[in-house]
């Protein structure tokens, strides 16, 4: 796929995904096109186009709708018997009190209740400190549950830390927890469900390459991505996304689980270029 064909295909993707309505769409579009222009090979451009077709870009303005969608996925039969839900952010104990997406999501929850008639009989309690969740301060009754929330769950590392710590400080069982997220990787979703933890997410993502191609095409696509990643200084650490997540998602920020070529600035020759969904706060011009 030559650069001009890739640019036209990208234009189609932007329209079909309604990305033309997003803030900064022009910047993102330009960085994608510059990337197509900088890639040497047709198969590299083709892979980026194919991955972009599967890419999710969730803006801040879509957060409310996505959280409501996730909460609506909880089975009514499970809600009928509940009297109280403790909402708790998915954070590591050492990150308590820091500005993170988890606590930030909890703040408007009570105002969402009017859009959730199936939760009308349930009291919402928002908790942000591990201390409150400890055995000394909380005894969970049979008709009470803990909903753990975050906008995105990638490798699940933070989620596991959070659950482990909660189990250490109280007598919680797996069935006491439900996980609510806007988007999640399928791998962690499946592993939590296997552990008997309920999990509800508005978007569930497969691995961008490993789950979408089969051999012999798969090995070829992996080599192409490795070749592309050679343009990223220090890209090895995040190769195929943190924890090999192979994610294809941008929320308020782009998680490092996403393939780094989408968010990490890269070099061609002596010039430095911005990634389409650059995480850098400053912008580089070519």
């Amino acid at each position, binding site marked *: 796929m030559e*650069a*001009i*064909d890739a*640019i036209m295909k990208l234009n189609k993707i932007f329209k079909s995904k309604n990305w033309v309505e997003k803030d900064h769409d022009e910047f993102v*579009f*330009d960085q994608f*096109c510059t990337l197509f222009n900088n890639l040497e090979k047709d198969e590299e451009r083709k892979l980026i186009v194919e991955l972009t077709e599967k890419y999710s870009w969730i803006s801040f303005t879509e957060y409310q709708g996505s959280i409501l969608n996730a909460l609506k996925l909880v089975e009514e039969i499970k809600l009928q018997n509940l009297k109280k839900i403790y909402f708790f952010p998915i954070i590591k104990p050492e990150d308590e009190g820091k500005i993170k997406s988890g606590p930030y999501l909890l703040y408007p929850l009570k105002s969402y209740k009017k859009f959730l008639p199936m939760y009308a009989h349930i009291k919402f309690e928002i908790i942000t400190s591990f201390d409150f969740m400890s055995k000394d301060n909380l005894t969970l009754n049979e008709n009470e549950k803990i909903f753990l929330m975050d906008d995105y769950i990638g490798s699940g590392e933070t989620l596991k830390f959070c659950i482990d710590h909660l189990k250490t400080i109280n007598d919680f069982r797996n069935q006491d927890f439900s996980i609510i997220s806007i988007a999640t990787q399928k791998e962690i979703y499946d592993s939590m469900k296997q552990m008997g933890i309920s999990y509800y997410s508005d978007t569930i993502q497969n691995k961008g390459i490993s789950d979408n191609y089969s051999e012999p095409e798969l090995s070829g696509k992996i080599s192409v991505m490795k070749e592309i990643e050679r343009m990223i200084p220090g890209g090895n650490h995040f190769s195929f996304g943190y924890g090999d997540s192979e994610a294809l998602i941008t929320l308020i920020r782009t998680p490092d689980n996403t393939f780094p070529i989408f968010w990490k600035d890269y070099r061609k020759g002596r010039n430095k270029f911005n990634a389409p969904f650059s995480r850098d706060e400053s912008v580089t011009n070519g």
Partner: protein
Amino acid sequence: MASKKTILLLHIIKHHRNVDQLKREGLSYREITILVSESVDSDFLKYEHDELELTELGEKLYQENKGLIKKQSKKEWIQKDERSKIPKISKDFIFLPNQNELNF
């Protein structure tokens, strides 16, 4: 009458498919996609299976107007290297090198 940019686009699709020339003409990537879409609507280009190709009409238009994008004189397609330019020296000028700066 086709614009110079349209003919340049047809030239790019026909020959090398590299958009740098259009960028140098001052078009943004978005404007390039608009130019392509307009050329598809005018039946100069066809866009099938995610690939662009010249139509018969496009080919005819290109052949009739390719002179528009040909650089007419050397002045237009070779840029002057102003940095290496030195002032003109008169024929009576005698150059006396500074002994301290000579390295032989």
